[in-house]
């Protein structure tokens, strides 16, 4: 991996693009808005720099997190800035939403949105590389970005000092709504993805 990090990142980026495309389509039909994915970016970052890369540890975001068990070990997050999370929940629940005090229905709606995105992301990529992916049921919270990222980073950080953050932004075409998917693969998972998608080292 050390020899050609650029090509490795290209492959991972392509992988994430396909997953994110599928997730955005599912989210589009759920919300009945047209969503557009921006290009996926893929960065190798030290643990301390991940939240800066995503815009700063202190911003308030809605995060839905799940972790893949099985052959592929990987954290997957759907992150919405607070304005977008509020707009999305108001759209879905047809009631006014206070992010500081979400009720059970609202929190459940947030989890479900994350769940749908994550599942469609996984369906697309697992088909592509023919590997079964088993996600743990997701959980969601609205809090400081740094805090939302702690557990995902702790799950991959046990083995490494740097993480590969795979980031795909999505945006609504006609509304103020945006967010991103973040994938944090473990190294064994990276190897598997590279093997299945054509390892540039070979």
């Amino acid at each position, binding site marked *: 991996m050390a020899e050609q990090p650029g090509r490795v990142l290209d492959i991972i980026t392509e992988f994430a693009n396909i997953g994110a495309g599928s997730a955005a389509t599912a989210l589009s039909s759920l919300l009945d808005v047209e969503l557009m994915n921006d290009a996926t970016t893929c960065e190798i970052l030290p643990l301390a720099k991940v939240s800066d890369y995503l815009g700063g540890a202190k911003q308030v975001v809605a995060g839905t997190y799940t972790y893949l068990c099985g052959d592929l070990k990987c954290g997957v997050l759907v992150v919405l800035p607070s304005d977008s999370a509020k707009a999305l929940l108001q759209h879905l629940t047809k009631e006014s939403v206070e992010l500081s005090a979400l009720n059970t229905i609202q929190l459940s709606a947030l989890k479900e949105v994350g769940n749908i995105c994550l599942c469609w992301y996984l369906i697309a990529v697992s088909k592509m590389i023919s590997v079964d992916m088993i996600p743990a049921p997701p959980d969601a*919270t609205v809090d400081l970005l740094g*805090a939302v990222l702690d*557990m995902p980073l702790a799950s991959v950080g046990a083995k490494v000092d740097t993480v590969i953050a795979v980031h795909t932004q999505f945006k609504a075409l006609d509304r103020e709504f945006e967010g991103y998917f973040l994938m944090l693969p473990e190294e064994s998972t990276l190897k598997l993805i590279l093997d299945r998608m054509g390892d540039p080292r070979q």
Partner: protein
Amino acid sequence: MRDQTIVGIAQMAVCRAPRGLACLGLGSCVAVILYDPAMKLGGMVHILLPKAPHKCDSDEKYADTGTRKLVGELIAKGAKKERLVAKLVGGAQMFPNLSLSISDIGNHNIDEVKKTLKELGVKLVAEETQGNRGRSAYLNTENGSVTIETAFSATKTI
């Protein structure tokens, strides 16, 4: 606001008044904050995981090795262990409904820091830990007070 150093995940910093120290957006991570009032010398380490493996990649990432390294660094800068006071912030459970072994990592982090502080004989005087909300911690090196900010609640000082 006065100048401050931001301490990121798996990082450590030590400084003297008037410069402050801060850890932003702590979830399950723990900020171990040590202060020597006589020297107005403060230190912070932002730990991610409880116990360092046998072959450790970075001391600052783990509760046990990070806490030890911070105490050592403060003593090297002239602090006395008997004067040091410790405050802890963080160790929350951000995704309590996620059924993974790592879900409880915040508690493990806190336990390991407390154990290490006890072994080293450093007094723990205050903590703002556990729960399920993220926190930012700011150390005022003039008096050793730690201000805690959250996303939605009022600011608190310990």
